[in-house]
């Protein structure tokens, strides 16, 4: 079975067993045992809800630092559009580029072109798609993982196309290899990520194989240094040569709740943000209710990628800044269109393989499984139904299942066992 890599680390020494993460987890992937949170690998979809909830700071993103890419001859930053909304308004996108170069990148990639290419390719794909609708976006890695864990049948509706960051990664390698005469493996394509899930998707793509990117650096990792250098650049009127990374609205829209603002209007497009909403909508897709939608964009984060767990600024503030920035921008621009014309149709954006469902181990034959389910229902009927979590499972229902699968005991319930109460007193005693 695949070992799933995840972007989080629970630091046991700092974990107080407060259960906040367990209660926040949308896939019931956390249990608290012996007063410490533990994650169940196969169920985790890297949404980062636990990390956001942990007041102790005991759950950390496993981020990489720029120094880890020191062995490469040339390091190229592929900045998430979210990055450009994270700075004070007077620090313009071209100053942020100066900041990125100052912290050690050798070049900053013009990612808006790849985003525009992605929109065009999606429009084409949807036109040609004859399978069930809606076609589902692959951009949010959490949603892809959610499909793998909870909606395996909907994976066939997932667009078989690389997400924009991967399209950029391949072109970064080709472009600089040609320009510098270096082999592609000496050039690092590094994504500047606004969420941990993108990092994980680069380390371990859901579809298997290898990412075109060499890794990612979270915005917080470089924020202070980029800010300092970008501020200086703004003050001195220094700019980044000829690169203005935010030239058209499409670059801005990708960090808003409606990323594909430039999708042709012949396509019925729906964008959903926030995991609970995404789950509701996917339930409807499964029932066949959304056949009239051509393309469905789902973002695990409320209000879209701008609210990623590695974004520094409050999402409303950063979106207001981006909107101010977008006010004077055209839908697209000649430079972007020229690049699009050069690349579109010559590059293969298709996914080599589709993400497969995550296999959960099925134990026993159907008769045995029915028996276990009925056993779980019997156990559930004697549990209090309060979902207090004191047993270490997020709900009575989950405890009932854990008991039938042999991972817990019904005596873990404080209503059924005095032993559990004593154990909790011992584990959670505040003063020694």
């Amino acid at each position, binding site marked *: 079975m695949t070992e799933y890599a995840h972007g989080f680390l629970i630091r046991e020494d700092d974990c107080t067993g407060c259960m906040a993460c367990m209660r926040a987890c949308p896939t019931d992937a956390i249990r608290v045992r012996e007063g410490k949170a533990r994650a169940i690998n196969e169920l985790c979809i890297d949404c980062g809800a636990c990390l956001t909830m942990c007041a102790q700071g005991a759950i950390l993103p496993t981020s990489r630092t720029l120094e880890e890419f020191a062995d490469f001859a040339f390091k190229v930053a592929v900045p998430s559009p979210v990055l450009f909304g994270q700075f004070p308004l007077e620090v313009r996108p071209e100053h942020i580029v100066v900041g990125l170069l100052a912290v050690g990148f050798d070049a900053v990639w013009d990612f808006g072109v790849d985003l525009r290419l992605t929109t065009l390719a999606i429009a084409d794909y949807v036109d040609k798609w004859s399978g069930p609708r809606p076609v589902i976006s692959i951009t949010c890695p959490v949603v892809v993982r959610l499909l793998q864990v909870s909606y395996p*049948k909907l994976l066939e509706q997932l667009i078989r196309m690389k997400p924009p960051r991967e399209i950029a990664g391949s072109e970064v390698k080709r472009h600089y290899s040609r320009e510098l005469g270096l082999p592609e493996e000496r050039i690092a394509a590094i994504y500047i990520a606004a969420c941990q899930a993108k990092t994980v998707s680069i380390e371990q793509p859901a579809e298997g194989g290898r990412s075109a990117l060499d890794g990612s650096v979270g915005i917080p990792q470089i924020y202070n240094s980029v800010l300092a250098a970008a501020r200086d650049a703004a003050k001195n009127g220094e700019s980044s040569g000829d690169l203005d990374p935010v030239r058209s609205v499409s670059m801005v829209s990708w960090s808003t709740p409606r990323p594909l603002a430039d999708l042709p209007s012949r396509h019925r497009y729906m964008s959903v943000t926030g995991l609970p909403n995404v789950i509701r909508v996917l339930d409807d897709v499964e*029932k*066949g209710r959304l056949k009239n939608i051509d393309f469905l964009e789902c973002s695990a984060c409320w209000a879209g990628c701008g609210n990623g767990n590695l974004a520094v600024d409050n999402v409303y503030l950063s979106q207001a800044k981006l909107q101010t920035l977008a006010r004077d921008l055209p839908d697209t621009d000649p430079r972007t269109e020229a690049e699009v014309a050069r690349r579109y149709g010559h590059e293969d954006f298709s996914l080599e393989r589709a993400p497969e469902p995550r296999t959960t181990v099925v134990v026993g034959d*159907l*008769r045995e499984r029915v028996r276990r389910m009925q056993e779980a229902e019997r156990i559930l009927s004697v549990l209090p139904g309060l979902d207090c979590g004191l047993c270490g499972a997020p709900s009575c229902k989950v405890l009932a299942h854990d008991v039938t699968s042999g991972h817990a005991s019904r005596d873990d319930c404080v209503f059924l066992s005095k032993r559990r109460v004593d154990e909790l007193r011992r584990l959670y005693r505040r003063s020694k």
Partner: protein
Amino acid sequence: MPEELLSRSFTLHSHDFDKAGETSTEIKGMLKELGIDSQVIRRVVVVCFEAEMNVVMYADEGTLTFVLTDEDIGIEIADRGPGIADLDRALEEGWSTATDEMREMGFGFGMGLPNIRRNSDTFDLRSEVGVGTTVTSRIRLDGVD
């Protein structure tokens, strides 16, 4: 003779658009937990949902009975309601007696019964005008579309 492993019964309420779809969600959860093939689950979900919607839209009250055997899944939806006068027409794609209000809510495209039939391995529709309608669908566990 297939052996019955599990049987459940759900009451469906008419005009309850708010809760419509809950039964199919519950059945889906159960089948997922039982490790049933996802292709089979999807077909069951579509059958249950469409049948549920038919009761919500047209009938006075209905019952959905779900039976799992070691070979297949049987779904029977029996309602008390107006019944269907012309069974053949009801099975034509796009034929519907839905009101404008129902269409505004995104239902009533005349795909309900055809969809149920398409997703079933065996399908049966019986109706008596003024009394009610019974839809029976069986979906094999090893079946493919």
